[in-house]
């Protein structure tokens, strides 16, 4: 009996050892993958080395080291889903019962098949798309929500018909003030549906799209296949995925994701303080922001030339300046801006630094065409939106 008991005990120890083996071996082999070598991996087709904030529903973050190309490949592009992805969508959408309906405060409501949508004149916009909650994990005190690091942002060329053309075809009544988007995402429990609206002026802007393509390829399911709104320069939540209904309203849509969701305090708030809903406004354009893509936090480098580099964006404004400090903010040096630029797209930037041995705090700070610049400390708010403090990495030079 005693032997049997011992055997069972040994077996459970063996099981524990088996469980620990992958991480031990990964440490020993120092695998050539981005991220820590003992970071567990999850297989998700089409999503390459992204940080898994949530698997169900899908929330994936781009590691900052991927911010070294002007256009972010779709496989590296962050994914933010509020709900479960549509399960009933046919990949053969042109021959399916999928429709995009246009109604509300319009003269001639209508519905488009995917083939009809595809025949409309196409326009392309290179846009930096950022989740309003990007950087939330850096807020103190911490606030609830997906704990994004710095990578819920990416830049892609989005293509599709202009929303303006679709709305003008329906004929907007004088009462039409806002445009609501509804997607096909599936709502769990009694969660309010992810429905939001944008003001008619932004909806009629010639750069606001019903996008069907991303970087020249049809949208993937994670990015809103077969069609999504693309509201350039605005928080990602404005760009509704799996779009199926466009409705012109006589006022802002009333729903959880317009209020209390996605609102910002009208006045600065002491960290940790509550804010009344009437003292807030809906989020629209993105803040001015820069992120250091290299060197990475905690790295050890050899003395000599070091390229400090990253990306900077400013929503509807243009980035006019990025500065880098290698002495914790005591002095600032101008970074060179990359050649690739577009109205709503980020600029890549580089600063060539002659590094001598020591420990450093490297900072980056962007300024935009409206004179906005990144604050030294985060602007705290109860939902952790629009984090845009000066970026910082700590490194060692040997």
């Amino acid at each position, binding site marked *: 009996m*005693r*032997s049997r008991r*011992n*055997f069972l005990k*040994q077996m459970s*120890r*063996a099981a524990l*050892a*088996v469980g620990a*083996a*992958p991480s*031990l*071996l*990964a440490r020993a082999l120092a*695998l050539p*993958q*981005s*991220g*820590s070598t003992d*970071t*567990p*991996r*999850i*297989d*998700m*087709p*089409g*999503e*390459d*080395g*992204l*940080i*898994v*904030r*949530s*698997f*169900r*529903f899908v929330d994936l973050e781009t*590691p900052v080291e991927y911010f070294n190309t002007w256009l972010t*490949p779709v*496989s*590296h592009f962050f994914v933010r889903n509020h709900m479960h992805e549509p399960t009933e969508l046919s*990949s053969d959408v042109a021959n399916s019962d999928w429709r995009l309906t246009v109604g509300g405060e319009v003269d001639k409501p209508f519905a488009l098949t995917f083939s009809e949508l595809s025949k409309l004149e196409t326009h392309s916009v290179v846009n930096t798309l950022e989740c309003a909650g990007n950087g939330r*994990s850096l807020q103190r*005190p*911490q*606030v*609830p929500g*997906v*704990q994004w690091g710095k990578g819920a942002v990416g830049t892609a060329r989005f293509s599709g018909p202009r929303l303006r053309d679709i709305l003008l075809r329906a004929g907007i009544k004088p009462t039409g003030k806002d445009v609501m988007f509804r997607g096909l995402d599936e709502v*769990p*429990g*009694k*969660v*309010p549906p992810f429905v939001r609206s944008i003001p008619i002026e932004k909806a009629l802007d010639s750069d606001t799209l019903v996008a069907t393509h991303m970087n020249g*390829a*049809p949208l*993937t*399911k994670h990015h809103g*296949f077969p069609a999504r709104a693309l509201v350039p320069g605005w928080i990602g939540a404005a760009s509704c995925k799996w779009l199926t209904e466009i409705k012109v309203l006589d006022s802002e849509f009333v729903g959880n994701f317009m209020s209390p969701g996605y609102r910002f305090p009208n006045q600065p708030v002491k960290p940790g303080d509550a804010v009344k809903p009437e003292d807030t406004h809906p989020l629209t354009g993105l803040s001015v922001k820069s992120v250091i893509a290299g060197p990475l936090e905690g790295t050890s480098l050899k003395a000599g030339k070091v390229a400090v580099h990253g990306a900077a964006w400013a929503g509807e404004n243009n980035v006019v300046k990025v500065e880098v400090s290698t002495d914790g903010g005591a002095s600032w040096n101008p970074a060179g801006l990359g050649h690739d630029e577009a109205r709503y797209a980020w600029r890549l930037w580089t600063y060539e630094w002659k590094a001598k041995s020591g420990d450093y705090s490297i900072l980056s700070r962007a300024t935009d065409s409206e004179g906005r610049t990144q604050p030294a400390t985060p602007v705290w708010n109860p939902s952790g939106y629009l984090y845009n403090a000066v970026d910082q990495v700590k490194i060692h030079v040997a």
Partner: protein
Amino acid sequence: MWHERKSEMKRWADSLSVITLAVIVVVALSPWAFSQKPAADLPAGPMQGKATSSCLECHEARIILQQRLSKAAWTKEVDKMVKWGAVVEANDRDALIDYLSVNFGTDQPAYEPPRTSAGKTSGKKQLQ
């Protein structure tokens, strides 16, 4: 008699060490050694089962594992989720808030998230 059992146990232990080592090597070299199952679990505790059934019906455990919130903030979250359809017995509400506050309080170390596998599908055009 006892002596005999002891040496028998030792033989068991020796053979098990060899088996253990063999299993470790086989598992570690297999392709799934670095993959994590998609679903994560909530930590052990008297409310683990009830938290699993109340919360993970709609979303996975990592949404909870990554939070670092005060008890007041957890209370607001639990009440919001109940409003949104999470089934929590009235008698279990306080214990659930305690479980979440203890395991995912502001004093807990940062959560380390997994990553998607690298390089397998990069560059491929995929519809779904």
